[in-house]
């Protein structure tokens, strides 16, 4: 009932009040998490990257009164900063300060968000930064994140979720201060605002912050661009041609389950069992890395998890209307790429057919029940998860997960797996050299015989005989080869 009420409040068109999530505590730190319910999904179609550029200009630019240098000089002694994070539906500004510096820090934070400087030289700098991120950091230096971004682009092609948050190079080059100001005026409204504040702030402070932000326009009710992508119902592949030593692989499909939906807790258990992020003991990790030494790790996801190669825990405030189910295979040598894809799909197929055992279910449930406390160990995380719960219309995340887990059975999980996941309906993305060769393998299914540097147990040898023949049925016309230089242009 409570969840329903929150959901109604959040989606109500009449809602124009700023919402405040307050988590006071006895800490010597004060944490701010200011979230606007807008983001890259609201970029005008011809201006992908506008939301991200606007947020970056606010957090790394200047204010009406203070130049960038003056702002940095004021922040530096406090070792403080305001950081922005942009996703499809949320723009987050966050930062923390020692309570001794609260007034100084908050004054800067507030001014940065409410009185931006809109200077041309700041725009030039953050624009270069965004373009270099796409061209150099993503396209040039991080094949794993690249494969994930291309996967999302492919799945949501032509829809508001189908463009990377940072945008495209040609659109970024054309963006003007006027574009950014218009986006700010339209989207940075009281209607869209959730203020998160936690830690050792004085009494009455949260009310003061709320009042200060009431200078923002109230904002008209925003129509939410629907994300709903349809799955193709078949296997498709996008191969990114790039000179590279190894092959980075991600595969996935739309998932019509998000937090608050009946099948979410069951799929959370599935994700953890099949491929808990950056942990040993997941099924994929055990079969691919531990047993066969194919790569550095293999994981599964039911929610967006960017920058996973740099992080052990997900960042909050990446809430979305539609998620994907994703398998991440860390780089494999070219000669085992086809076998690795076969093995991942074999395991995925097995998961759908056989489900989880009672023992695996109990163990995974116990893990999630306790591990959830570790996810929410900082005030920033506590605020972030609470804001996400508001978005999804659910109780506090740990309460939501724990109470759902208590009622869950292995039968529920296995039924949810069969209801929501399909091994024959996936997009596969690989960043590789000599994509034509990989295309040929994927469309003709030749034997991919494995040899190892040490003898394997009999059951693995037997299983390999099945996997080396495991059919990945992709028609040649469903395989697209894309040169890396063409991406995000």
């Amino acid at each position, binding site marked *: 009932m409570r969840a329903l009420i929150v959901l109604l409040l959040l989606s109500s068109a009449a809602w124009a009040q700023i919402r405040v999530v307050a988590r006071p505590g006895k800490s010597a730190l004060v944490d701010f998490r200011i979230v606007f319910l807008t983001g890259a999904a609201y970029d005008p179609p011809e201006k992908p990257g506008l939301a991200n550029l606007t947020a970056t200009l606010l957090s790394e630019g200047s204010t009406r009164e203070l130049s960038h240098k003056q702002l940095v000089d004021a922040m530096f002694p406090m*070792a403080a900063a305001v950081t922005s994070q942009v996703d499809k539906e949320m723009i987050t500004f966050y930062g923390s300060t020692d309570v001794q510096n609260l007034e100084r820090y908050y004054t800067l934070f507030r001014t940065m968000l409410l009185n931006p400087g809109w200077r041309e030289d700041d725009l030039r700098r953050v624009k*270069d930064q965004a373009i270099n991120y796409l061209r150099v950091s993503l396209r040039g230096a991080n094949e*794993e994140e690249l494969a994930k971004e291309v996967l999302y682009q492919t799945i949501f092609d032509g829809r508001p979720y189908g463009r990377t948050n940072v945008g495209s190079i040609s659109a970024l080059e054309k963006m003007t201060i006027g574009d950014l100001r218009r986006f700010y005026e339209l989207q940075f409204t009281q209607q869209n605002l959730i203020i998160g504040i936690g830690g050792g702030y004085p009494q009455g402070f949260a009310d003061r912050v709320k009042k200060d932000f009431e200078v923002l326009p109230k904002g008209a009710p925003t129509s939410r661009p629907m994300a709903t992508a349809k799955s193709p119902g078949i296997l498709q592949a996008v191969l990114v041609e790039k000179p590279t030593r190894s092959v980075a692989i991600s595969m996935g499909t739309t998932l019509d389950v998000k937090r608050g939906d009946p099948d979410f807790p069951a799929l959370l258990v599935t994700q953890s069992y099949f491929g808990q992020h950056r942990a040993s003991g997941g099924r994929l990790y055990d079969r691919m890395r531990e047993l066969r030494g194919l790569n*550095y790790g293999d994981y599964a996801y039911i929610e967006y998890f960017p920058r996973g190669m740099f992080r*052990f825990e997900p960042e909050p405030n990446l809430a979305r209307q539609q998620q994907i189910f994703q398998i991440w295979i860390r780089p494999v040598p070219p000669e085992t790429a086809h076998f690795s894809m076969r093995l991942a799909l074999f395991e995925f197929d097995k998961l759908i057919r056989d489900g989880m055992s009672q023992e695996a279910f109990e163990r995974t449930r116990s*893990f999630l029940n306790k591990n959830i*406390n570790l996810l929410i*160990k900082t005030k920033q995380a506590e605020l972030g998860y609470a804001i996400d719960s508001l978005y999804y219309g659910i109780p506090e995340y740990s309460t939501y997960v724990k109470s759902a887990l208590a009622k869950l059975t292995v039968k529920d999980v296995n039924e949810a797996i069969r209801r929501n996941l399909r091994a024959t309906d996936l997009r596969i993305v690989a960043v590789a050299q000599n994509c034509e060769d990989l295309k040929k393998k994927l469309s003709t299914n030749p034997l991919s015989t494995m040899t190892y*540097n040490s003898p*394997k147990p009999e059951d693995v040898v037997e299983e390999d005989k099945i996997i080396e023949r495991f059919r990945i049925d992709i028609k040649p016309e469903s395989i697209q080869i894309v040169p890396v230089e063409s991406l995000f242009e």
Partner: protein
Amino acid sequence: MMRLLSLVLLCCGATLFAATPTEKAFPFPYTQEELPNGLRLVTIPTGFPNIVALYIVVQTGSRNEVEEGKSGYAHLFEHLMFRGTPRFPAEKYQALVKTAGGDQNAYTSADITVYHITFSKEDLDTMLMLEADRFQNLKYSPEIFKTETLAVLGEYNKNVADPNQKLFETLAETAFARHPYKHTTMGFLKDIQAMPEQYEYGIEFFNRYYKPEYTTIIVAGDINKAAVKTAVGRYWGKWQRGKYRPDIPAEPPQEKPATAQIAWPTATLPQLAVAFKAPAYSDRDPDWAALNLISYLGFAENSDLYQKLVVQEQKVDSLGGFLSPSPDPYLFTILARIKKPTDIRYVQDQTLATLQKFSDVLVERKQLDTVKEHLRYGYSLSLDNTQAVAAAAARALRGQRDLDTVDRLYALYAKITPEDVQKAAKKYLVDKNRTIVTLTGGK
């Protein structure tokens, strides 16, 4: 930090510090003790409820890889430690960690290897028992060893896409002639590729360093110190000391400046590394602390050079100075990513001129105080949960196994004068100590 510490004292009834909390950079009432076998135990009640972080720090890293052709073994061992014991084979070990909801991982640096797990307080005894078992009874077959070397190669493969990796590798190899800091923690590719045939050497490496006299256990969080001590004594007390003492070759003094150029095969932005031989970390001698202050004074976001190159001229999109707290002399390094290849020389000249100024002119005291304040607040802001506190403690044990070094270092910073800064610059930031590496991209 006053309120946090009061809370800690209230919760734990601990009153170990006589000094006022504002004088302590590490604000938690920790205890350090040594077991008869040489194992160190650091207990840190943090005041944050329910959670416990167990960090096990082994005093070995790529610095200890002294033999030719044997780079990367400290890191390989970090992997092998997850391969089980006769009592708890890998699957059983993992099942117990999973059931406890443990958040577990490990990392290797040049100087230490750290195994860490964070969990709910009721599982502390089980975790201490499990970890004690794998440190004392690790056992794996040659086949498992070979398979794990492939996972290490996989790690190398995923890193190799990043030009930074190549830049650091080349910088180390160019700057050092003898000391193992010559190679990165991953090791040379040829050594990683040869690992599968080195089963015996792997065991030897383990027997050298996985001993109590090289190990410190940090238990932080919602803990009872006495109970922790009893459990550690029970599970870890019988672990036998080893005999091995490493003979790490000293780096001879550099005679003249060195340079290297990297041609990156694909399109990327040019990168510049300007490095100088720096002193080993010390919390007593002012040189290391003074140089670390220079890395902020000269190259932090509010510095003149950053503002000039990144904000005004916009020729550079990232700039920073770095000094590692290494137990042996390592490098003071400035890194810049430059937007156009034609500006590399200009950025290099500007960097060197900025450094030269620290030798020529005394820094203003006010500027120096601002950096000291920044460091102090930066440190305290980072200690916002039990896992972060334990991780910070582990990092502090990189040289000596003594957490008191944190407070000593911040006390030393407080005393550093403009004259100390100038003296350190004149001594270390000189041409013959210098290595410059540039990386430029292809089409």
